[in-house]
């Protein structure tokens, strides 16, 4: 029991260490620069809001990217699912929760269709997703004469960016994903396919069905992120010329941080923690008043540095292991001598 508690404490500490470090770093930096307001009051609410928003997009990306499928259609699914869902909600006079469910259902269908295209056409996923993104962007633009959707005149609808709704939504989604990926057959199959595609297929896992489900779940998560964006701004506008791919730019850091933090808890929880780190960085830069280009340069350097670290950190472990083995071998030899 004691060791269990200890292990839990270590895992908790491991998961929360980076987010806490990021928060403290920027709190100190902003304070030292004479810029108040970081991480307290409304800024904390914004950090949490960005955490959930980026976190959902990263979670969506993770369902496919960890299985070697890069999905360019992330942004286009987000936009089109919200436009379709909100149009339906306004036409039927639905309330906020039914509107959310309509968007989630639409997102799942659009994601599923994207997966279906991949499975049926058997093309490299990046290629399929580019084509799907073009088609979804076109569809979003052709609807409503290119003006997108607006719920500004319906103040009862955009409630999903405020407390406690956003926290309930995030907690429910992450809990479901943790259950799904760790305690269901779908989860075992997904993890098997991630670990080794050929082996998993050889032992009888239906790869196509799994891929379809992954795409559908990703679509659902993207729709949830889209509803949060709609709740923040009150509008959702279409994009063209693969401009929707910009939605995934801020998803990489949480994704890779999540992979790194997965050793302490679960990938999904790790992604949310990673998203919190990124939200602190973004908020910190905003409060420091850095220009857009400088923010972009610094953000990309941080992502690159982290990617380099996570992809090569095993070498550090390997070095430690080899060093320990070498020392043990030397000690053993000295004993015999």
């Amino acid at each position, binding site marked *: 029991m004691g060791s269990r508690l200890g292990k839990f404490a270590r895992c908790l500490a491991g998961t929360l260490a980076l987010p806490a470090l990021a928060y403290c770093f920027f709190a100190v930096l902003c304070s030292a620069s004479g810029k108040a307001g970081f991480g307290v009051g409304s800024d904390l609410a914004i950090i949490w809001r960005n955490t959930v928003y980026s976190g959902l997009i990263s979670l969506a990306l993770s369902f496919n990217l960890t299985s070697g499928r890069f999905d360019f259609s992330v942004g286009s699914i987000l936009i089109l699912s919200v436009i379709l869902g909100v149009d339906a909600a306004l036409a039927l006079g639905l309330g906020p929760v039914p509107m959310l469910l309509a968007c989630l259902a639409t997102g799942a269908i659009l994601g599923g269709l994207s997966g279906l295209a991949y499975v049926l056409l058997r093309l490299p996923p990046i290629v399929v997703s580019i084509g799907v993104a073009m088609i979804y962007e076109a569809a979003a633009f052709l609807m409503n004469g290119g003006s997108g959707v607006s*719920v500004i005149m319906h103040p009862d609808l955009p409630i999903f960016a405020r407390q406690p709704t956003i926290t309930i939504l995030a907690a429910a989604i992450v809990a479901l994903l943790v259950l799904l990926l760790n305690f269901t057959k779908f989860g075992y199959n997904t993890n098997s396919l991630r670990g080794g595609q050929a082996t998993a297929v050889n032992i009888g896992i239906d790869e196509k069905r799994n891929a379809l489900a992954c795409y559908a779940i990703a679509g659902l998560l993207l729709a949830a992120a889209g509803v949060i964006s709609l709740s923040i701004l009150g509008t959702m506008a279409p994009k063209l010329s693969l401009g929707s791919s910009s939605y995934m730019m801020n998803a990489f850091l949480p994704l890779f941080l999540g992979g790194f933090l997965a050793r302490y808890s679960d990938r999904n929880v790790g992604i949310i923690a990673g998203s919190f780190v990124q939200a602190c960085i973004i908020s910190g830069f905003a409060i420091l008043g850095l220009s857009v280009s400088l923010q972009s340069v610094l953000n990309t350097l941080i992502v690159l540095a982290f990617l380099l670290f996570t992809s090569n950190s095993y070498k550090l472990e390997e070095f430690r292991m080899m060093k320990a083995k070498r020392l043990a071998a030397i000690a053993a030899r000295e004993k015999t001598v």
Partner: protein
Amino acid sequence: MKKAACAIALIATVAGMSAFGQAKYAADGRYPAKTIKIGVETFDPSDGGYMGVQSYLKSLSKGIFNVEFIFSERIDSAEQELQFIENCAAAGAKGIIAYYNVSKGQAVAKAAELKMFYWGTAEEKDIYDQYKANPYFLGSVILGNGDHDGMYGVTKALLAEGKTKFVYANGGADFGITMFVNRRLGFQDAINEAKAKGARITATEVPGFPNEAWFAAQGAALAGDIDAVVSSFGPEVWIQPITAAGKARAVTIGSFGAIGPSTVDLFKGMYASGLFSAIATEPTERFGIAVAMIVNAAEGNAAALKKNGEATREAESLWVITNPQDLAKIVDFELGAGRTAYSKDLTKLVKSIDPSAGNATLLDLIKGFSLETIRAKK
């Protein structure tokens, strides 16, 4: 016998003239008989202002002029702009309406090289001076320095209400997009003028367009002590956040915006609630003038509308709407009979229809869409 012959000759002449006159018009009554293609280029096809212009142009092509428009996709760079102009030439277009220009004089030169009439860019004095004598450069009806003046006017309106704590959403200014750079200059000029008179003004900028970084900057700005938001790319993305921050009574918005069927109710509601103070909007009618000028030029009568043989560079203010009454007048004009009547008057710019078409006609029509003229209408 003589009388009969004269009568027959007279009847034949009248019949011939009317047949000739009718041949100028298409079967559905639009002018001219043969369709004229016109390319329209833009930075962002989903921009509200541009969509308003598109809608107006389509209405012109349905009822008044036998024109077909080739609308561009998103044009980011100079090479895309030149490609679009070349595509229009290949499609047989006679003119280009430049809602946007990135390659500066290159676009004018390219259009002229391909024997297409170029309408636009006259607000850039150096480009205008370089090409004003070029027969293919029609110039344009400029809104002064519309981007600068619009944001300046909106900011002045807010200052006049006693606002002193500003947030400015600068859109693409930090990305070097000229339109947004000019709008920011307009905002800054108004603020600096007020400061020079002794007013204590604070101004915080929120850079870029909505994404995570923008949400953070917007939130930080709204958390501060503010009483006005000036937006360079539309008010919609501020209404919900201001309301959610509980500042709907304390903060008012001034912005560039587009008056159209999808925004009218929103704007009316926001003015009524006190959330809006001022909207700067571009009159779409000047693009109606563009169509008429290109049709006229395509028939070889471009010189008729020129002053001293030079391309047009007449100015009219854009609309800075600072009260609900002006909004109502503008809405009535834009979405009602006012614009329809105005559109019919555009045919006066085509010399083949109206032989008296000249520079004076052009000036009358430009005055016709001014805010003062619209206010005076009953």
